[in-house]
């Protein structure tokens, strides 16, 4: 998908008293894209989304949708609709009137209104629920009503603020698939806020990772996982082992890194970033790129002590303590016994190793 700027956010900032909730964020989202904003609690996701919806005014910057500057428009004049985290179903109206709430302005005939509401109820598979009240629905059903009430307005951009946060795990996973399927079918641009990285990675075309008001990186899910651009992103997306070092030799397709604990680490430069001899770097390795054996491997091996083993079905999660490195190495080893002797005891000496292209080299902060 070509990245055009259907929804364009340019240099947007928002301050609340002493906190800079959103710090100079620029972002372009394509028409029909499923875009997720991912970040820890309090990083400014909701604030950024509220500025797209018109519920908050940016202190500076521009929000444009489909070529029109909407920065100064109130929510009722924007081609956006929102699914609120609390769902905000009107308690004094039944489900049909909730879904049809926004249709009043369109001055439809009663029959047309009924027809659209019925179609909407069918879309969310709640036919026959029209006369019920919100408190007579389950959490998942309410979530769908909130979705239908927003979608009936045919918005150019649908904003969803942690819409699945209140659901239990099973229902959440089912709704993830339903939502994604619905979005593909309707072709509406979705901006989806979540702090659940699995949710963001599995549903989205692209993900923007936020931290402390800043947008750190925007990328496709696979790229974010395989080529995080900073330690913050790398540690927020999945599990990562880190240690620091210094570049000893730098060639076009290989790096040698010297570390205190492991004499020499062979690595490949990844991404567009170039390193020079002497640069301080951070070596980041995914748990599944590490392997464990009782003898050292030919490259990138370090000796440690097996600290803990937990069984995860088809994998074992191992914690290995290496002298001088604060955090134990986390290793994900297949349970078929290839990686590790089945009877390895805690405290036994083991070797942890990884291939030269298994590590991600980041600039040290």
């Amino acid at each position, binding site marked *: 998908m070509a990245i055009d700027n259907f929804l364009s956010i340019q240099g947007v900032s928002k301050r609340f008293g002493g906190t800079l909730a959103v710090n100079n964020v620029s972002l372009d989202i394509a028409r029909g894209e499923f875009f997720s904003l991912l970040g820890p609690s309090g990083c400014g996701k909701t604030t950024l989304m509220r500025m797209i*919806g*018109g*519920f908050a005014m940016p202190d500076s910057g521009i929000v444009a949708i489909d070529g029109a500057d909407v920065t100064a428009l*109130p*929510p*009722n004049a924007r081609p*956006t*609709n*929102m699914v*609120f*985290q*609390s769902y*905000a179903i*009107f*308690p*004094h*109206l039944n489900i049909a009137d909730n879904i049809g*709430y*926004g249709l*009043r*302005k369109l001055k439809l005939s009663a029959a047309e209104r009924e027809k659209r509401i019925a179609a909407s109820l069918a879309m969310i598979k709640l036919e026959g629920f029209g006369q019920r*009240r*919100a*408190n007579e629905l389950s959490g998942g059903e309410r979530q769908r009503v909130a979705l239908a*009430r*927003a979608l009936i*307005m045919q918005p150019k951009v649908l904003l969803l603020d942690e819409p699945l946060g209140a659901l239990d795990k099973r229902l959440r996973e089912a709704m993830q698939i339903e939502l994604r399927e619905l979005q593909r079918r309707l072709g509406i641009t979705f901006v989806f806020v979540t702090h659940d990285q699995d949710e963001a990675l599995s549903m989205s075309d692209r993900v923007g990772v936020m931290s402390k008001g800043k947008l750190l990186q925007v990328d496709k899910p696979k790229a974010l996982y395989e080529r995080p651009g900073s330690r913050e992103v790398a540690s927020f997306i999945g599990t990562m082992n880190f240690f620091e070092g210094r570049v000893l030799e730098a060639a076009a397709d290989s790096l040698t890194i010297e570390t205190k604990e492991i004499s020499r680490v062979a690595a490949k430069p990844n991404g567009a970033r170039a390193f020079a001899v002497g640069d301080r770097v951070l070596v980041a390795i995914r748990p599944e790129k590490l392997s464990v054996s009782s003898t050292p491997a030919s490259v990138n091996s370090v000796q440690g002590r097996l600290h803990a083993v937990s069984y995860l079905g088809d994998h074992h999660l191992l914690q290995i303590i290496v002298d001088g490195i604060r955090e134990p190495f986390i290793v994900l080893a297949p349970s078929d016994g290839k990686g590790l002797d089945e009877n390895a005891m805690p405290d036994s000496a083991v070797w942890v190793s990884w291939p030269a292209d298994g590590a991600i080299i980041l600039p040290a902060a």
Partner: protein
Amino acid sequence: MEKKHGGIGLMIYAIAYLTFLYVPVLFLPLFSFNDSLFVAFPLKGFTTKWYAQMFEDEAMHRAFWNTLRVGFAAALASTALALPAAKALTLNRMRGGNVLIGFANIPLFVPEIVLGISLLILMTAAKVPLSLISVTVGHTLFCIPFALAVLMSRFEGFDRSLEEASLDLGESGWMTFWRVTFPIVFPGVVASLLLTFLVSFDDFMVAFFLCGTDTTLPVFIWGELRFPFKLPGVLALGAAILIGSCILVAFAEWVRRLGTTGSGPASFGHA
């Protein structure tokens, strides 16, 4: 054992308290049915003639009608003024809200006689003739703190995102108020109307200073007390007001609580 003992002590205290509070009030209906001009034991016999006598009194009719009109107007005015204030103070967390609440509550703490005299001076200075209008203005001022308290308690726990959702779905702020906010706080509005009506209905002091020749019921009663032979009739009127007030208060409290318990929706105001 000891716990039970404490329980009995508390029970005795509660009974004594309620007796002290309500027995004097119960003398009112009791003597209103007593077939004697004198309010004294022993009771003479049962009669309803005092009620009949009172309800045929033309002056009483006029005073009652005046009180109703002032009560309706003051209830409407104070509730209408308090509604946006209560919303601003709770939903929008207005800056300096506590100061505003403090000022609005002043009429509760100023002695009524002081309030009455100040209003009288104000009306005279402003050349407002003393009439039902001046009473209504005084009562509105006096009723606002009550309306504010009832409405604010209704606004507590109102989910702001309901209003945002309405704006998001294309409605203006004004239509959002009528289609979402007002129906949801409607029970509070009814409770406020009932309560402020009662506060106005029962007020003597402010009405006494401001009513001029248009007497309200409490002022009328005060005037009647000069004539000893009218005392039983006044008791009959008092008893009727007492029972009416109790019913209205109970109803107001019931309405105020509608839809606030649990997640049940308010059963009012289908927009």
